[in-house]
């Protein structure tokens, strides 16, 4: 893991560019994919929280999958869903306590954030740097809040 995805809700203005970027980045055959990121009202005035998968170390989705379709990509650190292995039982969708495993109704697929394979589109397009994909410097164990 060389980089880390960082969400800073304080910087988010709720413009939903990330949502759009995600849907475009995950389009299939020219049809938009379901966004894996949602800026949601954080309960305070003008505070938005971009809610997306934070690739938990001990992930509920991975635990819930009975066919091992969810596996961590050691290069990006993202928990990736192997679409070919997925049996669409909805276990991960129901199990994720952050609601970041989703059903893409249009494509009839279960989807989750895969960090775009190492170059997240949401972070690339975020105008306020509320979403960043930063190289890890120094000790990789230190976790930024």
């Amino acid at each position, binding site marked *: 893991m060389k980089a880390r995805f960082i969400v800073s809700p304080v910087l988010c203005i709720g413009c939903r560019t990330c949502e759009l970027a995600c849907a475009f980045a995950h389009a299939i055959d020219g049809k938009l994919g379901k966004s894996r990121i949602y800026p949601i009202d*954080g*309960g305070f005035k003008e505070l938005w929280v971009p809610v997306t998968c934070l690739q938990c170390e001990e992930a509920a989705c991975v*635990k819930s999958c*009975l066919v091992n379709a969810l596996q961590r990509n050691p290069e990006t650190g993202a928990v990736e869903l192997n679409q070919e292995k997925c049996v*669409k039982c909805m276990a991960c969708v129901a199990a994720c306590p952050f609601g970041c495993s989703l059903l893409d109704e249009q494509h009839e697929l279960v989807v989750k954030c895969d960090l775009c394979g190492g170059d997240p589109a949401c972070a690339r397009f975020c105008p306020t740097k509320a979403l960043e994909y930063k190289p890890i410097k120094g000790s990789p164990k230190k976790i930024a809040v």
Partner: protein
Amino acid sequence: MIRITINGKVTQASEGETLLKVIRREGIDIPALCHHEAVEPYGACRLCMVEITKEEWNGWSKYVTSCLYPVEPGLIVKTHSTKVIEMRKTIVDLYLARHPNCAEIQQLADEYGVTKTSYQTVVDGDNCILCGICTRICDEMGFHAISMVGRGHGKVVAPPLDEAPANCTGCLACAQNCPTHFIEFEDKGNSRTIWGKKFEMITCEKCGKTTITKEFADYLAEHRELPREYFNICDECHRRSTALDMGRIASWSKEVK
């Protein structure tokens, strides 16, 4: 790494991979109805048949189901040779006789130019092609709720003794992955019926949306060490509460600023 030739193009494959996997990775489209990556290959539908040969075979070739055949050094594979197409046509022809009303089979028949079956049509047949994806996925997930019952003409997929299966948790994986959409189920209100068994669905505590069955959630909580509370609300309400939790934390740093 193993070097093989597919339709004249040399390609690399790793040991233990099956031909079908390599063929599909090369972007070549060959039909396969009984194949699912979640389970072991089975070789039931016979549609992924390809022609293989090697230089040292002196012009001899054989026909194998690519889903089961592991790659070997020096294999020369033809996925669309005249003979292979002919064989696939015959298989589709047989399927069309057995399942004349199946949309997926009709589509395959269209693709392979089989307009009419040359065999006697089964009049009141069902759309189950006995590919075993449902039973194999059920086994793989650890439920063993359904299996193949009977032999020959009488072979069907059914729960034990044709009764509501005790092990079924109503996860719907069998129905979702059936290549011919034959397995029936009904989601009505907060109940789900499949294989003659009725399940109560979890309704989100906040918005009332139904998610998975209670039995499936209980199974996951028990066997996968997941807190049962995780399943009480739907994914959307989970996201909302995540936003509120993170918002609260973020608001502290705002005050600090």
